């Protein structure tokens, strides 16, 4: 029986979900595994919701899209986007969520509440294994606002839920990002892994 890992990456346009998906896929390719991925392209640059599906398996994979209730890992680059994807989680899945929300313009206009804390609390009550990462702190530590995606991958790595080693993802980074950004991204990977150890809810 083959073993498939379904990884969902959710965020808003500009947060780097596509690169995060690419790194996981790349690591899978290097490990000789089968992989299929699918992403939102098009409206993605304009701040809308973006979701990437990545499916990795030691056997054949059919659909590039995972079914509801089958995600093993959910990376929420934005807590509200993580909440939106809850129907995809399998029982006992691992959720890595950035603590900091990006309120949609509709919430700002209607002065509706868009509370990251409420969303994280909700995620915590779903029965998923929740790891909250202070994305702003990690980005400040690494010195770039653009590494949130890789930091969350690092956190997922630390939980063991991705099924890859640090070395495998480091190699994927070296192969996939422009040379001058390699060190920064590897730093972010490690900072994310450390944050997963320190963050609230970790190790549940």
């Amino acid at each position: 029986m083959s073993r498939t890992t379904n990884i969902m990456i959710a965020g808003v346009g500009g947060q780097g979900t596509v690169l995060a998906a690419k790194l996981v896929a790349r690591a899978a390719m290097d490990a000789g595994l089968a992989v299929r991925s699918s992403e939102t392209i098009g409206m993605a640059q304009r701040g809308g919701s973006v979701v990437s599906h990545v499916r990795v398996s030691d056997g054949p994979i059919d659909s590039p899209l995972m079914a509801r209730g089958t995600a093993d890992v959910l990376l929420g680059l934005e807590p509200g986007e993580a909440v939106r994807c809850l129907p995809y989680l399998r029982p006992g899945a691992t959720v890595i969520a950035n603590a900091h929300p990006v309120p949609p313009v509709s919430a700002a206009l209607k002065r509706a509440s868009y509370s990251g804390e409420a969303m994280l609390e909700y995620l915590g009550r779903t029965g998923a294994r929740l790891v909250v990462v202070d994305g702003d702190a990690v980005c400040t530590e690494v010195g770039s606002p653009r590494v949130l995606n890789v930091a969350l991958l690092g956190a997922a790595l630390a939980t063991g839920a991705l099924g890859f080693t640090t070395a495998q993802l480091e190699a994927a980074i070296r192969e996939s990002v422009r040379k001058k950004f390699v060190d920064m991204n590897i730093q972010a990977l490690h900072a994310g892994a450390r944050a997963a150890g320190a963050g609230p809810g970790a190790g549940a």
Partner: protein
Amino acid sequence: MTALATTPDRLLVSGDEAVALACLDAGVRLGTGYPGTPSTEILETFAQLGGKAQWAPNEKVAMEVALGAAFAGARAIVTMKHVGLNVAADVLFTAAYTGVTGGLVIVSADDPGMASSQNEQDNRHFARAAGVPMLEPADSQQAYELTGMAFALSERFSIPVILRMTTRVCHSKTIMRRVPLDKPPHDPHFERDIPARVMVPAYARPAHVRLRDKLERIAAWNEISGLNPRIEGDRSLGIVTSGVATVHVREAAPQATVLQLTVTYPLPMGLLRDFAASVDRLLVIEEGDPILEHDLRAAGIPVEGKPERFRFGELTVDRVRRILTGNQEPEPPPVRGKPPMLCEGCSHRSVFTVLRKLGCIVAGDIGCYTLAVLPPFEAMDTCVCMGASIGVGLGLRHVLPPEEAKQVVSVIGDSTFMHSGLTGLAEMVYNPPPTGHVLLILDNGTTAMTGAQEHAGTGRNLIHDPTGKVVFEEVARAMGIRHVVVLDPMADEEGMEAEIRAALESGELAVIIARRACILAAGKIRQWEKAAAEKRAAAHPASPEAN
């Protein structure tokens, strides 16, 4: 875009990238098209790989250029999103009669579920309406191999071939391996064949008969083409499927016997009859309209289809399970996402702020600026198809009472104006409404919505090298508009408001060009323009503006 992800023998590529690779390996001489999600990356990747690829002003022109190349014996590919084929349909229907010498492959990238489109039309209808073969891949490997096969088929039967993809095939990455593809049989050269290529009635009548004969022969070939794989399983359930629905079916019903059609027109009815006879229960699972289902029924093959509600949107593994089990329960609401919006710092923001303030009736068009329909702007009243802003605005002006008519403006982007705005502008000059009209061209110097592609108004080609440039203000004046204004929408918002107000009150025909580079593309545009200027200067030291 970065290099394609590769390990020694495996490539992780999107369906679009796979088509581009196949074009390279199949010796395609020319790729042309108009950008449109989800098709855009095919030509961009083909150019990166060293192929000759270019953006045309619109899909009709692109298909004409590709047809000319195919008349000359070259392999040519023309790419577009589904709605682009509406624009190119005039070429398609008669190119089916003329046939081709070199292989001509038309990529129609459909968007079921409308991830980034104004409708979800199912372009499988076009194959049947025009009478051209259609191939449909389910993943990148099939996209690669079927592209190669499409050229061979096109040459063998002298007919254009449609390769129909959908968003999930175009944009999903799956592993593929390159395989040897048939090369073009000869180099381009001109061979006169007037009865085949001059479609006056006397030549077109026999051409139509030839077309129907070809389709019969292609159907016979398709019976034994080996391109419609049968996956053996439990004979109690047989499923006929195609495209991305195939992989959803395989996952939802791994035990079923499946017939995947990759050549979906003309259909291999003998093969389908044999398949039907070999299973207890026969189901068609197809995304979009019930086309295969109706074709099978019309051929007298009893088959179950899907309930009407599954016509709408994409299929998924979950939805296929519901079809298989006859689950009547309402589907869980789709996971709703945050809508996109106009970027911070986007110059369209000031334009629509002013239009809203002036209480304009805005006939809009297709592009990023369509997002002005959303809060906080809500400053767009119509959006139909590429270029419709001008015609629709004029129609409103012709019949509304004068006090309302005077508030109507047409708003169109630069790339959309190049695509379908010129004929609208001619209409505006030729049939001016009594109250005049105001056309706003939002010129952000790029095809922004699809990710910053060049167009005929930028002065640079697909690979950003310098080329001829269509200058909108000169076009407007040459076409007979006397009131032409060019302004920077962010430099002076009050000034812009005054200009728009003056144009509205003048009762004349006015074209206002709001010119400011797209905030997302401005950096890239500066780099491209700098490099292009250097190349222009090197080519023509005496006149750097020459092209």
